[in-house]
């Protein structure tokens, strides 16, 4: 399976994704500079974390105008798998490929820490290897991670089952205390209506090897892989 890992100016999780794809999963990956315009050679496209354009103006607001985003739109419209993590999630929201927006976290600090996610809906190809209610232990690393959508949009994505994962306690309880950034309804990850675009604030690529303190990130890749191999 061949992954395209997008690189915007200021992206930094690109190398971590490539490491996991190549060295942990034994799959194929390729860096895609943001000025490229064709993604048709890939089985999955990843928008990694980082500070595209320094997060200047507003997170993701400049990157969404990069030439590659036109290709991402087309790729997604054609049913291709698009996975945005952290800054990638922010860019997908800015580009209108996912609903809602990521605001500054409520405590007004950058936070790098482990959190727990409860799997809410396994129908998308990104978490199909999980069972609903599974709890995943993964790291976050962001300042602007507070998911927000207006009431109508929120009602729609909830009723469509677009919420893929929520911040939870280790026991899987959805609570304020388990919410690391103030996200509405504890939302950590959502898909588009069709389920082929996922945005996720946490960093699954950081927990795919035991030596790094956890392997739960692998379920995202395990979910994606069988669908295309």
């Amino acid at each position, binding site marked *: 399976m061949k992954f395209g890992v997008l690189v915007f100016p200021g992206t930094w999780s690109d190398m*971590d994704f490539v*490491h996991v794809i190549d060295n942990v999963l034994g799959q194929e990956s390729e860096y895609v500079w943001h000025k490229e315009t064709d993604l048709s050679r890939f089985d999955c496209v990843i928008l990694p974390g*980082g*500070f595209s354009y*320094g*997060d200047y103006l507003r997170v993701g607001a400049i990157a969404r105008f990069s030439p590659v985003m036109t290709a991402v739109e087309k790729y997604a419209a054609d049913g291709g798998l698009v996975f945005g993590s952290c800054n990638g999630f922010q860019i997908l929201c800015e580009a209108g490929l996912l609903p809602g927006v990521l605001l500054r976290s409520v405590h007004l*600090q950058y936070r790098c820490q482990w959190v727990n996610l409860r799997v809410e809906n396994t129908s998308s190809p990104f978490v199909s290897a999980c069972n609903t209610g599974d709890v995943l232990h993964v790291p976050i690393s962001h300042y602007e991670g507070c998911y927000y959508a207006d009431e109508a949009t929120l009602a729609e994505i909830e009723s469509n089952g677009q919420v893929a994962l929520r911040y939870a306690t280790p026991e899987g309880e959805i609570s304020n205390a388990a919410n690391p950034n103030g996200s509405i309804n504890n939302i950590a990850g959502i898909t588009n209506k069709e389920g082929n675009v996922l945005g996720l604030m946490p960093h699954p*690529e950081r927990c795919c090897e035991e030596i*790094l303190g956890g392997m739960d990130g692998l379920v995202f890749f395990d979910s994606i892989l069988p669908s295309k191999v």
Partner: protein
Amino acid sequence: MPINQQDLDDVALTQDEYQLIIKRLGREPTIVELGIFGSLWSEHCGYQHSKPLLSIFPTTGDRVVTKVGEENAGAVDIGDGQAIVMKMESHNHPSAIEPYEGAATGVGGIVRDIFTMGARPIALLNSLRFGPLSDPRNRYLFNGVVAGIAGYGNCLGIPDVGGEIYFSDMYSGNPLVNAMCVGLLETSKLVSAQAGGAGNLLMLVGADTGRDGLHGASGLASRTFEDDRELRPTVQVGNPFLEKLLIEACLELKDTDWIVGMQDCGAAGLTSACVESVSKSGGGLEIDVAKVPRRADGMTPYEVMLSESQERMVVIVKKGNEDKVKTVFDHYDLRSDIIGHVTDDGIARIIDDGEVVAEAPIKYLTDPPLYRLDGVKPEWLDELQQFDFNSIADVRREDAGAVLLKLLAAPNIASKACVYRQYDHQVQVNTVVPPGSDAAVLRIKGTRKGIALTTDGNGRYCYLDPFAGGKIVVAEAARNLACSGAKPLALTDCLNFGNPEKPEVYWQFEQSIRGMTKACEVLGVPVISGNVSFYNETRGEAVYPTPTVGMLGLIDDIDKRCTISFKSEGDVVLLLGQGQASLAGSEYLEIMQGEVAGVPSIDIELEKRVQQCLLSATGEGLLKSAHDCSDGGLAVALAESCIAGGIGFEGELPIIDRLDTSLFGEGQSRAVVSVGSTDLSRFEQIATEQEASILKLGFTKGSSFVILEIIDLPVEELADAWQHGLEKAMG
């Protein structure tokens, strides 16, 4: 226009130095020449007061790849054709004035020193000191510095894996902000800071040049100052996004043969970057300031040459390759301009659109007058050293638990998680032991190896006895690595002191260096890079003499790494090393008695044996945990291992003399280790071989921290005090 006193003051040159310049040139310098001399002869660039003493550090070793002071940072071989590059640098004065940008640009500067050598920056650490958090100004500085480090470092995608934070009255108004960066490179691809032969081109890349940071090197870093606000414009503003692009572009260049060298535009900007790189190869240079892209109108050649605008580098390009190099920068939408070239006449010639505005021999520029002063032991020190510990009451048995809780919550000891969780410490997916243990451990991908990193300093010890304190700083850093299972390979330092023109400060400086040197020699750890920060004073009062060190250790097999946390119940807990402790300079003495007194001491030969014992034992996989026994003494070290592992302890401590000394006294060459019962005899054998004593303290057990008949507290309660202490101190 004749040079006046104000011109000299601007660049911190004395009349004598000015006369020396006239004598060497055989004429009055132009204003541009004066600026160049002032910057390069400043303490910050020229090490006027420190060079003679710094030369006593041991700087060589089998693994040392670079010659100290010759490159942007020091490099040390870690096998497999790989080297680690590292350096630590202070940004104390800018941070005192504008904490966010001061700290941010400190990170930016040290990172540039690493990737200019062709190394990928793989870790950041910070050694920070502030006044007490009860003062709102100190809270402002603390929050600003932490936010600045987070704001800049997180944007670069370099994990911030460790460091230290201390608070003391002595740093009120003059915080210490020492940033360290570590890089990894293929040794054969090391990029030098040399300019090579005549004809090579000087290419300025990155940001445009503005008026920000004028006189940073000569003004801010090289003298004391009274009014902060007046100096605010000398603090630069960082752009981490631009720096991230520079990292990627410059690392692409290291794989080509198009360039000769790279040099960061740090203190004294273009002036030092160009002159220093050219001086190393004995050549000259010609720069046309008209070709320097600017962000402000009407800048004079003087301002262009002395600007400290951030995120700029000079790349020395082999003639004929300039278009190819430019393509790399164009790819990242970065600006790159040829501003001059290397000559062979030994002259630094600055031209402004055809007119020569400076023309000075480089050998004069890089040869500042050196000052070797006579240090004098401060008169007040005798009284502090002769403090009578019998004059203070011992802790009562029934109060020991409460004192332990108080120490665990003290900002100097309490968990720093509320700080380091603001730093991305995981990016690059190498962080195997995150912040919070004795040292951070990173894996080296594609190998079995790991590296351990730590920073250490103890201003209180150095204040009470700078010679012993200097030894202890080095020893403790090495011990942190040994506790992590890593053999110490090299160190970088930041020497933070007051005004060296005062004999007492110079004495502290000299004694500290001699102490550090002694420890480096005995422990076999060379100094591969470093930085001196003088004039750390507020209203005439110097900070604690505070040499800080950053140390690198190597773990041959990453699976042999060791951490501070107790791992399982039923393990034997032992004190390795020296049994004796003392209240001298201890955290306990300051917190409970309000005293900073006594004479700290260390037996550096014993230290070496203790560390060897730790290395042998971790190498054989015998230790479940190991924790350096430092601030807060034995009781605190035991409690920290309990908290980290979520496992209790039950045992007895040897009560020698006084209860407070036994529980909370501090002593060097000590570590708390836990060993599975089946490995105990082998561990005892190793300790005997190394002539390092061990003392059985008790066992890991249950969920309470029990020192029989003295302390019995749930680990949860200890953890609560330790985890929230710093936040509570913030109010």
